């Protein structure tokens, strides 16, 4: 390997209005290296990568590729320099096949030699272990398959420098493993890979080098072997952090929720939930683990009355709530928040301001024809302070805020409603470490108040540490309910893939 770094970014500065997103950032990446960028939301990771891929133009600073200075004024220039960016949100055409997606926007002649393209694709997929069905349409693909297609697309365009922006946010452990395999294979072939992630374990597993960014500045670049998660977390946040999650002890009393033999079918008549039975006690956190689309969403929607029940009973504080509509269920004190993969989706209205969004859940409880906005206004100010939401004001449309801040607004609203049963699906999806812990603390506070919590999560470490019991589902079926203190990741992982728990229920 040459001594000149493959990519070198020097003194990069980028200012948006009053916000300094990148301040004099230096980054060096060698070929055959997986280099992680760590940093909290707003630390400048995405800005830096958008500069590298030609989407933003830096105010100051220069980029060198193999020692030669380059200037990018458009993404096209970056592609020509063999930089391939994989965005957090996929840039694929849903109705097209893999092959068509790869060919779109290619400079070919008038006629397209499909067979040659297919041959090239197969060659590339063999080289990097990228298995893709060229004739499959994107809307039929899982998230993992889409990711692989995205990589194949940029590789086909000749990329040898790959930028992955939070690629594993919505992945199952299996999909992540597969992605890591591909990344390692590409590394062996001499590619340089830049990996952006919030997940400390992943960063520790895959990286060769780690650069920590904080508030738009490079803090340090470390060799993985010389560091540990605790040190990295402290470097990211800028002060010592405690990485353990407290499990608050609460005397479990009566059941808040009791679900018996719940069966739910979707619009096409396919069974989505198969005879689920479980309970949640007051002051208990029940975790729920499972591969994406194992019925989590259906369960959430059913409990809140958005989805009809086929069979079974749901008792909330001893009262059967099957057949009640959403409005009645919310009034009874059940709160549900589901952070979808695109993070905005359900539960918030992007073009409305914070006040209007905070009213969404409780305006029906107000009497009369008119809406009183005053409580929502004072709550907005409270939530901004409590959750450190960065916004120009309470009347600012929330869609212009960053993903993390939008999410905080949603969670803040659900917590402020003082529910008796709190259902949270993926509440920390894509949030930085500091905010994650704020949220865990908030959930624990609710628990201490005697609220029953259903916590649907992806991070098994968190589930084990935070929850009193962990329920695992697979294909709409409960494969096991484990005690949080005794559960292991391996065991949950097995249950997630359908190996039933032969042991007694915890």
């Amino acid at each position, binding site marked *: 390997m040459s001594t000149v770094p493959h990519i070198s970014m020097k003194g990069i500065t980028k200012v*948006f*209005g009053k916000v300094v997103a990148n301040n004099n950032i230096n980054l060096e990446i060698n070929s055959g290296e997986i280099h992680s960028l760590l940093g909290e939301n707003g630390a400048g990771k995405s800005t830096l990568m958008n500069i590298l891929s030609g989407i*933003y*133009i*830096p*105010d100051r600073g220069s980029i060198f590729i193999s020692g030669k200075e380059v200037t990018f004024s458009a993404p096209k220039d970056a592609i020509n320099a063999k930089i391939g960016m994989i965005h957090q949100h996929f840039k694929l055409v849903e109705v097209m096949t893999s092959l068509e997606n790869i060919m779109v926007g290619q400079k070919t002649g008038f006629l397209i030699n499909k067979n040659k393209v297919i041959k090239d694709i197969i060659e590339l997929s063999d080289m990097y272990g990228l298995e893709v069905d060229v004739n499959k349409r994107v809307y039929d693909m899982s998230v993992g398959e889409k990711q692989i297609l995205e990589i194949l697309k940029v590789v086909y365009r000749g990329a040898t420098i790959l930028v992955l922006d939070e690629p594993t946010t919505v992945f199952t452990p299996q999909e992540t493993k597969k992605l890591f395999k591909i990344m390692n294979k590409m590394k062996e072939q001499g590619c340089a890979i830049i990996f952006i992630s919030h997940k400390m374990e992943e960063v520790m597993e895959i990286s060769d080098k780690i650069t920590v960014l904080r508030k738009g500045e490079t803090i340090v670049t470390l060799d993985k072997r010389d560091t540990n998660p605790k040190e990295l977390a402290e470097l990211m946040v800028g002060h010592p952090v405690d990485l353990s999650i407290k499990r608050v002890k609460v005397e479990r009393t009566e059941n808040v929720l009791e679900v018996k033999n719940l069966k739910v079918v979707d619009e096409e008549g396919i069974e989505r939930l198969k005879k689920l039975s479980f309970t949640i006690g007051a002051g208990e956190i029940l975790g729920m683990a499972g591969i994406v689309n194992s019925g989590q969403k259906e369960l959430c929607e059913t409990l*809140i009355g*958005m989805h009809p029940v086929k069979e079974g009973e749901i008792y909330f504080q001893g009262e059967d709530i099957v057949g009640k*509509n*959403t*409005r*009645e*269920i*919310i009034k009874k004190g059940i709160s*549900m928040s589901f952070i979808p993969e695109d993070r905005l*989706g*359900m*539960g*918030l*209205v*992007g*073009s*409305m301001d914070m006040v*209007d969004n905070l*009213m*969404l*859940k409780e*305006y*029906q409880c*107000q009497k009369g*024809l*008119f*809406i009183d906005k005053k409580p929502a206004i004072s709550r907005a100010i409270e939530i901004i302070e409590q959750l450190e939401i960065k916004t*120009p004001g309470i009347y*600012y449309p929330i869609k212009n805020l960053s993903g993390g801040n939008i999410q905080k607004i949603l969670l803040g609203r659900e917590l402020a409603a003082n529910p008796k049963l709190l259902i949270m699906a993926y509440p920390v999806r894509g949030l930085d470490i500091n905010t994650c812990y704020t949220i865990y603390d908030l959930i624990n506070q609710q628990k201490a108040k005697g609220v029953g919590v259903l916590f649907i999560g992806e991070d098994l470490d968190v589930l084990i540490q935070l929850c009193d019991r962990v329920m695992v589902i697979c294909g709409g079926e409960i494969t096991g309910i484990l005690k949080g203190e005794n559960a292991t990741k391996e065991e949950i992982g097995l249950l997630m893939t359908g190996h039933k728990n032969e042991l007694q229920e915890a």
Partner: protein
Amino acid sequence: MPRFIKRDEISKGRSTSIRIFSVILALFVFSIVFILMQKNPLDIYASMLKGAFGSSYSIRETIKLAIPLCIAALGIAVAFKMHFWNIGAEGQILMGAFAASVFALKFPEMPRPSLLLIMMVAGIIGGSLWALIPAVFKAKWGTNETIVTLMMNYVAIKWIVFLQHGPLKDPNAKGFAKIANFTDNAILPEIFKVHIGWIFAILLVLFIFIFMKYTKTGYEIAVLGESEKTALYSGVNIKKTIIISILLSGGLCGLVGMIQASGISNTLVESVSGGVGYTAIIVAWLGYLSAPVILIVSILFAALQQGGSFIQTSYGIPGAAALILQSMILFFVLGSEFFIRFKISKKEGDAK
């Protein structure tokens, strides 16, 4: 190379000045046409202004044009807020006029206040039922409301024409295909020499403003428009909300039909709507679906029409010219939206 940068936030004053500037720019560009016609554009614009607001008579005429535009635009705004693209105001106006006229013609001797009240209710019901049809189609079968409402305009027009030539043809009109004139009992009284529709308009602006901003239903309509899933999630009764907003939207348009038939044409003719239903769409958009702004925009549009017909007679400029000017203004105002969202910078490397 100049670059466009997304603005973070823009003050109300600045966005208003950009819009006003765009109107001035439209007038400026259009002066080229007048110059080619060897007329002094400044003179023409001045006399347009005079034609619209120059005398108490012209002000009254402008207001008469503004009334239907304003009320219909309010109705359209309610549907648009829910992202229900109601292009059918024209038809709803006609059906409202039709329903009101049935009573005006059937009970010509009924005392004035009760007859007018019945006509108003009939007009509102006529318009709202006409609007309900595409709404039900959409709710049940997912049809495209833009196309259905648009097509139903033609059904309504032809229905009125059929009535003129057939069942409601006035036998005393010497073979001329028209519907009999209303009796005085069926004609709206005047206040300050303008039929009382202007009072309705002002009251309705207030009503819609409060309805959309401070009532639960208004809030639900806005949420539903943005995201059906979110509305469902927060417990909004979706079907009920759709029906309320469409009945309100069509009802307001139907009321316009009644006002126009009773206050302007004094009978039922197909020109009762006269394109108001389409112009009102533009008014609703330019008014940002906000009731007070719609009031202002409808007066400006009425002035443009009134001024346009004035220069037609005094300068011999074809009426089409005024229409082009209208569309030119619309074009420029819509174009100005870009500059409200983005600013231009010459500085290299400031792009987003």
